[in-house]
């Protein structure tokens, strides 16, 4: 329903003083509204809205140098430069979940391909020296077998953010270094046909390193379990029913061909620890 009163200073009913007072009140309201509502606004545009400050800061200097994939480096001052850290957590079904922590940086998938704006862009994932993928967020999964992961921050125009001529990046090694070449990641980038995969496990009392998880194996793949225990024990692979004695503090290898699919536990008989699970698909 509509309002039942009007702003017009209606002539009050000529009975008693109440009407006259109301009339005065209406008149006052009218005057106030006139002053407040209309003063000086008729010739302006709308209120100024947001600020329209133009950006005056630069976006760094493109250097002649490039990264190994040919992306030019974009040098920015160290204070205020973006930064990245990376950590890896083993995944329960194999491989690793890596998590990026960025500072003074945000992922801008919508504007990729546009100009570089400080603190914006994406991350590139380099696994064992090869460009793997582009990241628009903080999480990524890397498959089993990868030994090192490097994440590098790029601008929207694909240049690499750099400080003092070096890319803004972070690297982490994945899992225990294993043979054949734990210190030479580039060597692992070529496929090794045999003896297949090696899983390193160390048992210390009740502690298993790496913590028990799942190892994904393709059917037909050869797997070597290399186990070091701090006390004498027996290593047993369920399903395949393979056993081997574990002397104290000496690594022992058990190699099998994963010719049956399924989930198979690897455990120690004496201490009753589950060391890992093999998922054969």
């Amino acid at each position, binding site marked *: 329903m509509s309002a039942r009163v*009007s702003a017009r200073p209606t002539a*009050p009913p000529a009975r008693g003083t109440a009407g006259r007072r109301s009339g005065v009140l*209406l008149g006052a309201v009218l005057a106030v509204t006139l002053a*407040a509502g209309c003063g000086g606004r*008729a010739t302006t*545009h709308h209120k*100024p809205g947001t600020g329209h400050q133009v950006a005056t800061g630069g976006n760094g200097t493109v250097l002649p140098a490039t990264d190994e994939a040919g992306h030019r480096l974009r040098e920015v001052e160290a204070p205020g430069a973006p930064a990245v850290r990376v950590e890896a957590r083993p995944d329960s079904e194999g491989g690793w979940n890596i998590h990026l922590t960025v500072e003074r940086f945000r992922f801008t998938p919508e504007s990729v391909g546009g100009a570089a704006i400080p603190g914006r862009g994406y991350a590139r994932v380099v696994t064992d020296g090869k460009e793997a993928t582009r990241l628009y967020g903080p999480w990524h999964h890397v498959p089993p077998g990868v030994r090192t992961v490097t994440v590098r921050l790029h601008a929207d125009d694909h240049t690499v953010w750099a400080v003092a001529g070096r890319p803004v990046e972070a690297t982490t090694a994945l899992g225990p270094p294993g043979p054949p070449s734990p210190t030479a990641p580039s060597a692992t980038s070529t496929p090794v046909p045999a003896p297949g995969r090696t899983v390193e496990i160390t048992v210390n009392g009740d502690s298993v390193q790496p913590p028990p998880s799942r190892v994904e194996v393709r059917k037909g793949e050869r797997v070597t379990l290399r186990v070091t225990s701090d006390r004498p024990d027996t290593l047993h692979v369920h399903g395949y029913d393979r056993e081997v004695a574990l002397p104290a503090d000496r690594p022992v290898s058990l190699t099998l061909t994963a010719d049956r699919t399924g989930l198979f536990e690897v455990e120690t008989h004496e201490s009753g620890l589950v060391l890992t699970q093999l998922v054969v698909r």
Partner: protein
Amino acid sequence: MSWTRRLLVALSVVLAALAATLLTAPGAQAHEERPVTFPDGSGSVPKLRTGEPDLLVCKTDRADLVRRISGFPAALKARNLALFDRCVRGGHRHLQQAVDAVDRPGMTIAVLPGLYEEQPSLPPPAGACASLEAPTSALGYQILSYEQQKQCPHNQNLVAILGKKDLQIEGTGASRLDVVFDAKYAKLNAIRADESDGIYFRNFTAQRTTFNSLYVLAGDGFVIDDVLTRWNDEYGFLTFASDHGLYKNCESYGNGDSGIYPGSASDINNGRGYDVPRYSIEITGCRSHHNMVGYSGTAGDSVWVHDNEFDHNMGGASMDSAFPGHPGLPQNHARFERNLIHDNNQNYYPYVADGTCAEPPVERGYERGVVCPQISMPPGTGIITAGGNWNLYENNWVYGHQRAAFYLSAVPAFVRGESAWGKQADTSHHNRYAGNHLGVDRTGTPRPNRADVWWDGQGGGNCWQADAGASSPGALPVCGTPRGEVSGGSDRLIGEPVKLAQLLVCADYDVQARRLPVGCDWYGARGIQRVETQLALAFAVVLALVGGALWWRRLRGSRVAGAAALVGLTGLALDVAGSTLSLASGPVPALALVLTGTGWTALGVTLRAERPALAWTTLSLGALTLLDAFDKAVLMIPWTPLSPAWLRGLLAVVWVLWALVASSARTPSRPSRRAAPAAATAPGSAG
């Protein structure tokens, strides 16, 4: 806001209406420019030239180009490689260099795939350009003359095209995203074509400015073909004071005002009816989404908007006459046909409230979906018309809106800077909404709008299709089949009082002060927070107390009066309920009026013997209230300059005071002078 203040607001609705429309622009018009006049209209819409380009723009990194074109079809790839070889030898590295090399009309510039930052244009003004004498707009930038733009083309523009005729600028990529002009929020405009008749833009992207990406000013003849604009403080495309324009297959998003703004399109049909010889600007095949409004047109005159999609904005499209300085006001003769206007329910006001929009533009995060709405407008609306005439809205699909499909209100002339009395009610006439598909998508799936129509009630010759669903008011003038035929027309000089009060409250929006009016549902107010419900409740309380006092003191013995008071009370309660957002467009408000009116009428009848004068006033009030119900629910009464609601409101003031005096008098036949103080305090205690 206190009750007292709320009452004061209510008491001042007439002026409020004027003030409200001053500040409320359900549209998009934050544009201050040097004084310009319309072109003379002797030009024409330019045609695409497909021959070899005259000038080339590219970067010199061949590997980069090869990467960019690697997915192109073979023929296009070969063409780009050939153009690249030619460009490296004799082309330009920046678009501005090529524009500066244009030395005759009719030249074509081809821009090869790449990212163009126009570095030579970027430095801030220096020397004489840093100290130009020019007025500063309310928006903070200088309003430069054409000569000053020529003198300092990069004070405000990344690329300035000044006075070039029949120029064509085209990207040579496979899609418009292959050629990107990026202003990085360092300039007001990315590309400005000023007094450049016959300009043809094709196949590129322009983005990230602090005003608009692609700006055509005072041009007779322009085409915007397959261009994308995004992430601007105000507009994607702004074409102003121009004629013979064509937008086609364009896209725009992420703009704080509108994606597409054909402001002050040439006013070539002023004075005509619906039949017009031509339109000044045609817009077709465009999509505008995730903006404050998809399309806007302050003085968007004679614009033919057809087969576009405006979706997921706060409002689909708007046009208005709410701002001075725009040639061609009041707005008239826009024609909307076969557009898909749907799901415009975004609400970006929280970004104002939380301070995101107070950051500098580069920091706001437009790229991740932030939009900073520049003005106050009703989110959840399909097409808003705030002060327009002779607009045609036919055969559009308008669905999925949480407020209303169509929103029509008037704007008095002084708001646009015209003070002549004869012009004050010259907007909101002859707008025709017919044959639209309301509340269904193109496949026929129901996607209802909460209401199909919201109208302030002002203006003559407006009409809506008969099958429109929920509307406010409930009874609308209905369009006949031929244009111009209206049944149940109206001639109101001013809109409904409560709607105008709402506009006043809603208009108190201020981006910079981060002020979102608490009483306005545009900003999220619900239930008792809304000014409409507060007003209804305040008046219900006042009337219930006064009516109750009257009944208790004078009519307690009468059963009829008791029943009348009950009916009236029920009506008042329903009135409060009917003021809520969910019931305002249904039958409840009219039902409430019927009950209140019946109560008053019966009360008047029982009062006749004791107080004939008051009785007749009460009867008149009852009759006006019933008439108001008839006006809102059955047929809008024609040939009346004010709705019954206004008369009812005026009379109600008289009645409240009179009833107070009557009920406080000691004897029915001899009112005492001492009754006066009691009467004077009563409204205070009631309010």
